[in-house]
């Protein structure tokens, strides 16, 4: 075995952002699906309160994170590229079972594998904005209805439909995400690095990259 080397993948802001976003999104899913009528947990009024308060915090966090990604240049980790996507898919479908070598190793220059890169870009550039924009339409429906929402053919039910479809997509993302983070070198490896910021890579791997 080669010697282990530690690289600093996730900065402090990034980790705070990730975990507070995680808590808020889970809270919003719990309350959101209650508002949707799936179950009764907090009661409708409380659920709406928690849901909208979390939404505002999340939007502030979103603005801060956009600012952070662009000022630090971290946005580069999410530039779309098809390079390495197919080997990564093949790895998840076949290699992971046969114990094949991982096609990708994280570095400070590319901390996400090619599939992650695309998935996260899709979530943060399309899915979450869809949630937020439809959510704002929902919150300010009365103010916006007459001016332009209705001229777009969007009644409250259409906005709610978009918002709920997006919410189910977030749920599906969450299920997949929670599983895929267990596919590191050990089950807890990726989670640990999101907590401490540090990821252990072998000397051999870091040289190869």
């Amino acid at each position, binding site marked *: 075995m080669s010697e282990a080397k530690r690289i600093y993948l996730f900065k402090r802001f990034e980790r705070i952002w990730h975990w507070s976003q995680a808590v808020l999104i889970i809270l919003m899913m719990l309350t959101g699906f209650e508002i949707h009528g799936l179950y009764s947990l907090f009661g*409708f009024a409380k659920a709406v309160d928690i849901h909208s308060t979390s939404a505002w915090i999340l939007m502030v966090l979103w603005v801060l994170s956009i600012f952070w990604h662009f000022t630090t240049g971290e946005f580069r980790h999410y530039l779309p590229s098809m390079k390495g996507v197919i080997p990564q898919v093949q790895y*998840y479908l076949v290699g992971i*079972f*046969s114990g094949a070598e991982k096609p990708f190793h994280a570095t400070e220059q590319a901390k996400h594998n090619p599939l992650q890169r695309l998935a996260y870009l899709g979530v943060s550039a399309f899915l979450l904005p869809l949630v937020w924009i439809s959510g704002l339409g929902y919150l300010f429906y009365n103010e916006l209805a007459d001016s332009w929402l209705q001229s777009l053919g969007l009644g409250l039910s259409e906005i*709610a439909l978009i918002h709920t479809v997006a919410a*189910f997509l977030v749920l*599906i993302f969450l299920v997949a995400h929670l599983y895929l983070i267990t596919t590191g070198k050990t089950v807890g490896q990726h989670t640990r690095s999101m907590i401490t910021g540090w990821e252990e890579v072998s000397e051999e791997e870091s040289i190869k990259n």
Partner: protein
Amino acid sequence: MNLFGMQISVLKGFAGVCLALLTAGFANSASMSSDHSLYEELQGPFDSIEDINTACVGCHNLSESELHDTIHWQWDGKLDVINNYHPNVASNSNACGSCHIGYGLPKNLTGGIEPAAVDCLACHDTSGEYFFSRFHQDGAECTMCHDDGAKALKNQVDEEGYRFKNFSLAEMAQMVGETSVASCGSCHFFDGGADGAKHGDLDSALINATFEMDVHMSAEGANLSCSDCHQTVDHKMAGSLYSFAGPTDDGHVSALKGPQATCVSCHGLAPMKDERLNEHTDTIACETCHIPTYARNGIATKTSWDWSTAGKLARKQKPLIHYDDEGRVTYSSQKGDMSYGEDLTPVYRWFNGEMNYQGVGMSVDPAQLNEINSPQGSAEDGKSKIYPFHQFESQLPYDTATNQLLPIHLAGSDRTAFWNGYQWVDSLQAGADAVGMEFSGEYGFTSTVMSRVINHTVAPAEMALNCNDCHTAPSAMAGIAGLYTPGTNQPGWLTKVGLGIALITLIGVLLHGFLRIIFSYRRK
């Protein structure tokens, strides 16, 4: 933003309360500024109630002509439209006349009601005795207000004596004053055959209302009288459904004009502390949440009436009366079968203030439930809100040859009146004759429904509908066309497809994880 909104709404609420106090104050000072018991003209003695009118109009010389121009005199609307309780005024003017503010109606009302002397004390008596005595002594048909012809009350009268015999006409004339809940209620509480029978939100309990019954009228609440909201200009009353304006009006009212009979005229459109609740007021009328149930004052309202069973007689041609355990009349030969309800949940529907009424001879489809009146409005017209309604069903006679509802000649001194002769053909023929309708001689009964908007008996805020009542299934707003109620209205497929894909994803990753474990053991 929320804080700012809250302050505004608190201010608005405060302004509303001030306005109410201000007008209540005016009302009191007006009645205090002159003492009618000192007027020479009112010293009497009066030989007849008409003489009191002469004394009144001697000073109030415009009042009569003002009143001739009002709905309380003209009965415009009421004369031409039908309801499905006592269906028609035509030919029944004697019986209906006990609630008119004159001294008896002419027999033929087809040309409207001509100006004549006005019975001032019908509304302005404060003794409580005048209008009571007038009903009971001027030959009013007992059955109009008492389904059993007051049979049940006769024992009480025998035991306790007559309720009122304390004042002379002169004393009553000297006690003249503001209208009161009791004076308005003497007509508006007892129509439909019993206390609270017709208006599920108006009954005699309101005279001493508790806070739970009505926050506006109770002494612990705003302590308002009917006329504090139904204000008059030259005796013209604000807030009648016949005028197609009033209870649903959202317009702002100048403080100088005094409150109109709308919630909004005192409370504005954003009266609540929670801005999210205020967001509802563009779609939901105040009454919908704040009158969660009606007929909840311990007095039942009628829910149905079957005229088709009327006319069954006991031996010796005596009319029958059946009571339920609560002493309500469930059958009378004069009226047929009736049923009652208390603490009822309203029916909710869109309403823009315009009510389509039907007249005598309305066409019906005997196979269907026929709407005697229909509240207009929809989600799309931009001016409707969802209002609570009392829906009342009854079986009414119609001509089977023409499918037209027939007017019933109920009361009078002749044998053709149903309440004298109990013969449908005779009374329907007399009713038809009175309005100039053809009657084939063949009749049947058809189902009708009437919708009455509920505006009174506003409950304390804690009793109002809460979020869950509408936003969790089963929703109080279920089935209302064009209304999206978050929490209950999304298409079923959405949840199924959304949860289905999430479940497939979950099974997929669990299977993947399971295979990883198996293969990793194999490799070892």
